[in-house]
C-alpha cells in the first residue's frame, strides 16, 4: 500500500478499503500519466511567464544526441520576450481564434513523430529480417525452388501408398492390413528418398547398396502387384498394370528426392514471408507518413492565411508585414526544429562515446560569438536564422549552451570541426559533472519524469566510474527549519536509493543537506567527482 492508500485508510476511520484504495490510486495514477502524456506544459508555461520551462537536467551531459529538441518549446513556438508576451500577436492568435488550428497541427505533428518513429522501427526490422534471411540463404545447401513444392511429397507418398495397396489388395488377409502395410511401405520409400537426398545435399556419395535397395523395394512391390492383378484380371493385364505401377513407384521415389534437394526449407520460407510482410508494413507506414506530412503542410498553409487575416483585422498592420509575420509563425509552428544535420558518424569515437554534444552544421551569414548562453527557444530561433541565411557554419551545442560557433568553408569542414571540438570538450567536461533533480512542493518521492531523467543520466555516466558522488538535498522555502532538514534529507535519500537501484555503488555515495533554509529550493543536486577528485 503506498502512501496515498494509507492516507485514505486513516481518513476513513480505519475502515478496510485497502482494495478500493489500490484501485482508486492506480486509476488516478493512470489518469495522471495520460494527462502528462498529452499536456503541453512547456507551451502553457511559456504563455504565462514568457520563459522556457525550468530545465530539470542542468547536467552538461544533456542527451542532445537522442533528442535535439529536448527541453525546447514544442513545435518551435517562439516564446515571447521578457515583455508581456501574452499581448503578442502570436499569443493572442494561438490562445484565441487559432487555438483549434494549432491543436490540430500539434496533433498532426505528434502523429508525424509517431509515424516517423514507426517507419524507422520498420526499417530496422527490415534490416534484421534481411540479415536473417540472408544468413539462412547462405547456409542453405539445396536449390532455390519454392518451399510449397515440398507439399508434393505428401502427394507422392499417397500415390505410392495407393499403388502398394493395389499390390496387396488381393493378397492380404484384410483391407486394414493391406492399407497399413501400403502406407508403411510408402513411408519407408519416402524415408529412403529423403536420406539419399540428405546425402546429396551434404555432398556425400550415394552408396550403390542404397540404390539397389531402393530398386529391390520397387521390384518386390511390382511382383506383388503382378500377383495381385493376375488373380483378378489375367496375366497380360497384370503384367501391364505391374509395369505401370513400377514406373509410378520409381517416379515418386525419384521425385521426392529431387524435391528435397531442389527446394528451400520451411525456415527460409518463413523468413521470406516475414520479410515480405515487414516490407509491406513499412510501405504502408511510409505512405501514412507522407499523408501526415501533406496534412501538416496543408494545415500550415491554412494557419498562415488565417493568421494574416487575424493580423489585418486586429492589429491593422500592412499586408506585407502581416505576410512576413504569418510566414514566420507558420515556419515556427509547423516545422519541428530546423533541418539540423547531426555530425555524420565518420568518427566512431565521437558517435559512440560522446553523447553530450551535438554538432549542427548548416548555413549562416554571421555568428554571434558572444551568445554562448541561449535559452532553448532563442537557440532554436538563432539556429533557424543561421540555417536560413547564406554561408556555412559549425556550432556545438550542449544543453542550453552554445559552446562554440564559427564559420566554415563547407559543410564537411563544419562537421569535422564539430566532431573534434566535441571530443575535446568531452575530455574536459567529464572531470566533474552534476545532475539536478527537481521535486514538487513538500514532496520527496521521485516523479516519473525525474526517474526517467535520472536513469538516462546514470546510463550516460556508466563509463565514468566516478570515485565519489555527493547528493545534496534541498527543501522548500516557506517551511520551518526542522521540516526542511527532514524533507531535504528525504529527497536526497530517495535519489540515492534510485541510484543504488540502478547500479551505482552505495560506497561512492554521500548524502547531505547543506542548507536547511533552502537557497536552492525544490531540488536535489547530484555532484559527481571523477577520478581522484573528491
Amino acid at each position, binding site marked *: 500500500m503506498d502512501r496515498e492508500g494509507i492516507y485514505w485508510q486513516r481518513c476513513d476511520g480505519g475502515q478496510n478499503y485497502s482494495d*478500493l484504495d489500490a484501485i482508486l490510486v492506480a486509476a488516478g495514477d493512470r489518469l495522471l500519466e*495520460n494527462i502528462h502524456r498529452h*499536456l503541453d506544459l512547456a507551451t502553457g508555461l511559456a504563455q504565462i511567464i514568457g520563459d522556457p*520551462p525550468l530545465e530539470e537536467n542542468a547536467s552538461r551531459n544533456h542527451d542532445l544526441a537522442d533528442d535535439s529538441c529536448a527541453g525546447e518549446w514544442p513545435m518551435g513556438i517562439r516564446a515571447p520576450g521578457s515583455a508581456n508576451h501574452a499581448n503578442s500577436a502570436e499569443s493572442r492568435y494561438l490562445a*484565441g481564434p487559432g487555438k483549434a488550428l494549432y491543436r490540430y497541427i500539434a496533433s498532426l505533428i505528434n502523429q508525424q513523430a509517431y509515424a516517423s518513429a514507426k517507419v524507422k522501427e520498420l526499417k530496422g526490422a527490415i534490416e534484421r529480417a534481411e540479415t536473417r534471411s540472408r544468413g539462412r540463404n547462405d547456409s542453405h545447401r539445396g536449390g532455390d525452388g519454392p518451399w510449397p513444392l515440398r507439399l508434393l511429397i505428401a502427394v507422392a507418398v499417397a500415390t505410392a501408398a495407393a499403388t502398394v495397396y493395389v499390390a496387396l489388395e488381393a493378397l492380404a488377409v484384410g483391407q486394414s492390413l493391406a492399407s497399413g502395410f501400403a502406407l508403411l511401405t510408402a513411408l519407408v520409400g519416402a524415408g529412403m528418398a529423403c536420406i539419399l537426398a540428405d546425402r546429396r545435399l551434404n555432398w556425400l556419395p550415394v552408396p550403390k547398396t542404397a540404390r539397389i535397395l531402393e530398386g529391390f523395394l520397387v521390384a518386390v512391390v511390382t511382383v506383388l502387384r503382378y500377383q495381385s492383378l493376375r488373380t483378378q484380371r489375367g496375366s497380360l493385364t497384370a503384367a501391364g498394370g505391374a509395369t505401370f505401377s513400377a514406373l509410378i513407384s520409381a517416379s515418386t521415389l525419384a521425385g521426392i528426392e529431387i524435391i528435397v534437394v531442389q527446394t528451400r526449407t520451411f525456415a527460409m520460407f518463413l523468413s521470406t514471408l516475414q520479410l515480405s510482410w515487414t516490407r509491406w508494413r513499412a510501405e504502408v507506414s511510409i505512405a501514412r507518413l507522407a499523408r501526415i506530412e501533406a496534412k501538416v503542410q496543408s494545415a500550415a498553409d491554412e494557419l498562415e492565411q488565417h493568421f494574416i487575416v487575424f493580423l489585418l483585422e486586429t492589429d491593422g498592420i500592412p499586408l506585407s508585414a502581416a505576410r512576413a509575420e504569418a510566414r514566420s509563425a507558420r515556419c515556427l509552428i509547423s516545422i519541428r526544429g530546423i533541418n539540423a544535420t547531426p555530425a555524420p558518424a565518420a568518427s566512431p569515437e565521437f558517435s559512440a562515446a560522446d553523447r553530450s554534444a551535438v554538432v549542427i552544421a548548416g548555413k549562416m551569414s554571421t555568428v554571434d560569438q558572444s551568445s554562448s548562453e541561449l535559452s532553448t527557444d532563442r537557440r532554436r530561433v538563432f539556429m533557424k536564422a543561421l540555417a536560413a541565411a547564406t554561408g556555412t557554419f559549425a556550432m556545438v551545442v550542449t544543453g542550453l549552451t552554445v559552446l562554440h560557433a564559427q564559420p566554415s568553408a563547407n559543410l564537411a569542414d563544419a562537421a569535422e570541426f564539430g566532431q573534434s571540438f566535441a571530443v575535446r570538450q568531452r575530455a574536459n567536461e567529464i572531470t566533474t559533472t552534476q545532475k539536478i533533480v527537481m521535486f514538487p512542493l513538500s514532496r520527496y518521492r521521485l516523479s516519473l519524469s525525474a526517474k526517467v531523467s535520472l536513469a538516462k543520466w546514470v546510463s550516460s555516466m556508466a563509463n565514468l566510474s566516478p570515485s565519489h558522488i555527493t547528493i545534496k538535498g534541498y527543501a522548500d522555502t516557506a517551511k520551518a527549519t526542522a521540516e526542511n532538514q527532514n524533507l531535504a534529507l528525504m529527497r536526497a535519500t530517495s535519489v540515492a536509493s534510485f541510484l543504488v537501484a540502478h547500479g551505482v555503488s552505495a560506497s561512492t555515495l554521500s548524502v547531505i543537506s547543506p542548507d536547511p533554509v533552502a537557497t536552492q529550493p525544490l531540488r536535489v543536486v547530484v555532484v559527481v567527482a571523477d577520478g581522484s577528485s573528491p
Partner: protein
Amino acid sequence: MSDATDSVPDIPDDPQEGRASACDLAGVSTVEYAMVYEAEKPRLVRYLIQLGANYHDADDAAQRALTQLYEKWTTVRHPKSWLRKVASRELGRANITNENPLERHDQLTGLSGHTDIDSLLEEDIVLLAIRQLPLLQRQVFALRFDQFETKEISAILQITEAAVRQNLVRARARLKEFLQRDHRTGQDGITLELEGGI
C-alpha cells in the same frame, strides 16, 4: 457536465484572500512558480476531469487558473486550494460563455474536439464511477484524492467539516458499490484489479 459546474461555488475576488505575509513569501520567484505550474497543472486537469470536464475544457480552465495565479502569485498563500477553487469557477464560466465566434469560425474539417485522450477517459471505468457520484461527493472525493485535509476541503467548498466527512464516506461507499456491481456484470478492465475482492 452541467451539474458539475452549475453549482461550483463562486469565489469572491477578494485580494486579501489567502494573502501571505512578506516573510512567508521571501524567496518566491518565477522559478518556484514554474515548479508549481509543472507540478500542479496535471493534477489540476485530473481534478477537473474527475469533476466531469473533458480533457480540453479541463486544460483550458486549468491554464486560465494558473494564469491568474501568476498574476496574484504574491498574494496567494495556498496555491493548491486556490487553484482548485478558481479552476472550478473557470470551468463553470467556460460552459456558460463558450460563444467565441472566432473559435467557431476556426473549426476545421476533422476537428471534432474529441481526442484520443477523451476516448481513453471514456473507457476508464473508475473515472466513470467517480463521475456518477453526486456533484458534492465528487468534489469532496476529487479533493481528497489530491490529498487535501478535511479542513481544507471544507474551506474550498464552503461546507462544514462534518459534511465533508459524511460526503466522503458516502462517496466511497457508492464507488465500492458501483465497482462491485461492475465487477459482477463482468466488464473488462476492472475485473483483474478486483481479484483481491473488495
